[in-house]
Each structure stands twice: as structure tokens, then as C-alpha cells.
């Protein structure tokens, strides 16, 4: 058994929470503890038979099975799902990168529930009434456990997916420094509100990091934007100005220009130039304004700041 897995897949010791006052539940918890070895083995065997957790080795399955089993019994005993939730999250964090899927996790928890239920059947089969009462005590608890583990796993999976999506988004929109004090932000594809916000953040941080005075935002590759994103674009220009940088928008299609006009943007105030090349030239002009004469300077209609 790998030491690493062992260290993390620890049995979580009983908390100080009150143990269940239900004598039946306590009796069955005792039964489950007594038969721990055998029941756990049976469960691990059924997992393999059902061809679940194929991404893990036999030893790993056994190690995790041990922890899940112990946590399961503990929850039955204390009624507290917090420890189980913590364990389930931890387990999910470890197995998701290994490619374990939702149906597998749900599958193994249900198998455990069955293995334990059958064990209870066997023990109390002679007394039908008692068996019923035992099952009445066991079932709601067992179902809650199955639910908790499955939900934790799914939530963790969704979190990982979102993280990956964001990483992809970030990679796909670099802020490029091409000259000193000049940044170019080429935007490609459809932008939603969340991505727009992410772009703004990257741009503003880029302005600070690169000490940019001019930013050329090229939206040639953006087919269309909705009003929310259009508003956002305007806000980005304003926020950049607050940081002392002026923004030149290039690649503004007729359609997007129309949307901007519709939301009330004064296009003459927004520094829009035809294409990226033209935008860069304009930017260089803006950056070079220190070397031109005062007379020429007064003819410049577009100033970097108020």
C-alpha cells in the first residue's frame, strides 16, 4: 500500500458530537464494526466485480474502501455529516484528477449500502419485526450518506471544470506588450459578461504591470456583442483612463458600432480606429506627443487624459 495514499486516506476519529441515542442504531453500528474486515473485503470485491474504479489499483481501492467504510460507520453512529463531507471533498480532490467519474462514485457508495444492508438481513433474518425496525433505523441514515458523498463529488467536479475553463479563457487572451508603454489586447470570439470582466481585470493589471500609456483593444475577431458586454467595453475604457492610459479600439464592425450607439455611447468620444495597424500607428502618435511642437500639440484632438 502506498504510504502517500495511506497518509491522506485517514480514518477520521470520532468527533465529540453526541452519539446516537437510538439503541437500534448503536447495535447495528457495533455489528458493522465487529464485522469490519469481512464486510469491507466483500465490498472491495464487489467494486472490482462491477468494474468500477478501474483507474485505481487494487491496493488504492482497498485503502480508500477502508476510509470510506470507517467514515460511513462513524456517520451512522454520530449522525454528523460534516466529517463525511470533509472526507468526501478530500476524496474527490484526489480521485478526480485520476479520471474517476460520477457514476463510479455513486456506484460504490450504493454497493456499500447494499453490502451492509444484506449483512443486517442475514443477522436479523429470524426476527422479521426486529429486522424491519433495524432497517427503519438504517435506511434514512444510509441514504443521507450516499447523497452527501455523491453531491460532494459532483460539486467538486464542477469546481474543477470551472477552474479549467477559466484557465483556458485566460490563456486565450493574452495582453501583449509590443512597445514600451503600449499594450495590445486582441480579443477573439464571442465574449460573455464573465469573460468581459476577466478581460478588463487582465487589461487593468497589464496597464499597471507594463506601465502602459496606450492600449489598443482589437475586436476584429469579435462577431458581435450584447448590450451588457458593450457597456462593459465602455467601462473598461473609463477604468483605463482612471489609471492614466488611453484606449484605442480597432476592428469595430458596423454591427458593433450600431450596438454602441444604441446604448448611448458617443462614438466620437471613444477613440476608434479602423484596423489594428492603424490603431498602432495612432498609439505611437499618442506616445510620441512629447517630441512634437506645442503648435502641433494643440491640433491633437485626442488627449490621453482629461
Amino acid at each position, binding site marked *: 500500500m502506498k504510504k502517500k495514499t495511506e497518509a491522506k486516506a485517514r480514518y477520521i476519529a470520532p468527533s465529540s458530537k453526541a452519539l446516537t441515542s437510538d439503541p437500534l442504531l448503536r447495535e447495528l453500528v457495533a455489528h458493522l464494526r465487529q464485522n469490519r474486515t469481512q464486510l469491507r473485503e466483500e465490498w472491495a470485491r464487489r467494486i472490482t466485480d462491477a468494474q468500477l474504479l478501474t483507474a485505481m489499483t487494487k491496493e488504492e481501492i482497498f485503502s480508500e474502501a477502508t476510509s470510506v467504510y470507517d467514515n460511513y460507520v462513524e456517520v451512522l453512529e454520530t449522525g454528523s455529516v460534516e466529517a463525511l463531507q470533509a472526507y468526501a471533498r478530500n476524496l474527490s480532490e484526489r480521485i478526480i484528477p485520476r479520471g474517476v467519474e460520477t457514476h463510479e462514485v455513486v456506484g460504490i457508495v450504493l454497493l456499500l449500502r447494499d453490502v451492509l444492508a444484506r449483512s443486517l438481513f442475514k443477522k436479523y433474518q429470524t426476527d422479521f419485526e426486529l429486522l424491519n425496525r433495524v432497517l427503519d433505523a438504517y435506511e434514512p441514515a444510509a441514504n443521507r450518506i450516499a447523497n452527501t458523498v455523491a453531491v460532494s463529488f459532483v460539486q467538486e467536479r464542477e469546481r474543477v471544470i470551472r477552474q479549467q475553463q477559466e484557465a483556458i479563457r485566460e490563456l486565450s487572451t493574452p495582453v501583449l506588450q509590443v512597445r514600451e508603454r503600449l499594450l495590445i489586447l486582441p480579443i477573439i470570439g464571442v465574449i460573455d459578461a464573465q469573460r468581459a470582466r476577466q478581460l478588463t481585470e487582465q487589461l487593468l493589471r497589464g496597464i499597471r504591470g507594463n506601465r502602459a500609456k496606450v492600449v489598443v483593444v482589437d475586436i476584429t475577431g469579435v462577431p458581435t456583442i450584447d448590450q451588457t458586454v458593450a457597456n462593459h467595453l465602455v467601462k473598461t475604457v473609463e*477604468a483605463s483612463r482612471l*489609471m492614466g492610459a488611453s484606449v484605442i479600439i480597432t476592428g469595430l464592425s458596423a454591427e458593433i458600432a450600431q450596438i454602441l450607439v444604441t446604448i448611448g455611447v458617443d462614438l466620437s468620444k471613444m477613440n476608434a480606429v479602423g484596423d489594428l495597424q492603424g490603431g498602432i500607428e495612432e498609439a505611437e502618435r499618442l506616445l510620441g506627443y512629447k517630441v512634437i511642437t506645442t503648435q502641433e500639440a494643440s491640433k491633437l484632438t485626442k488627449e490621453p*487624459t482629461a
Partner: protein
Amino acid sequence: MQVPILKQGGYLIASIQSVLSDADMLQLRDNLGARVGEFRSRGVIIDVTVLDVIDSFATRTLSAIAHMLKLRGAETVIVGIQPDVAFAMVQLGLTLEGVGTALDLEEGLAYLDIKTKRKPGHEQ
């Protein structure tokens, strides 16, 4: 909490050191007004790098300071607005319109150099 104001040639630099209360901001306004008059400063830099939030009151006051100083013959530039702060400001509709802004102290000085040289018949 008083904001220290340094004199650098024809400019004044007000460097905000910590979060300002409303009263502190008004105090800053009064101090700058007095000093600009006293030194006949041509430009004022207000460094807000340290501020983690610039709300409507701060925006109104900074704007008021800029306009007041303009009447006394000085250009104002606000420097050091952080990315997060700039973003929050525009989300809340606070744009500091009509007030000069620059990235940092160095840029602020450059800004003032240009702005103050433009004035016709301006004494050096």
C-alpha cells in the same frame, strides 16, 4: 490623519498614507487650497495608491479639490488608482470626469509638465 504635502519645485505632492475618513479628506482639501495659495504652485499631484476603495464621497471630494485648485491657478492630477479600485469605481458610475489622472508619481509629473507648459504666457 493628516496627509503630508511635499513641495517639489512648482508642484505640490500630497501622498495619502492610509485610509482617510471623510473629515480627513475635507482637511486635505483645505490644506491644499492654502498651500497652493502660499507657494503659488502650478500643479498638484494627489497620490491615492494606498486607497483600497474610492467611493462616491472620495470621488466628489477629489473632483472638488481639482476644480478649486484650478480656480487658484493649479492643475491637479490623481495618480495611483489601483486596477481593482478603478474597476469598482466605474462599476458604481464614479468616473472622476474632468480630472486628470496618471498611472503613478513619475507619470503624474510628466502630465503636469505638459499641462502647465501649455498655458500661454505662463511663467516658468
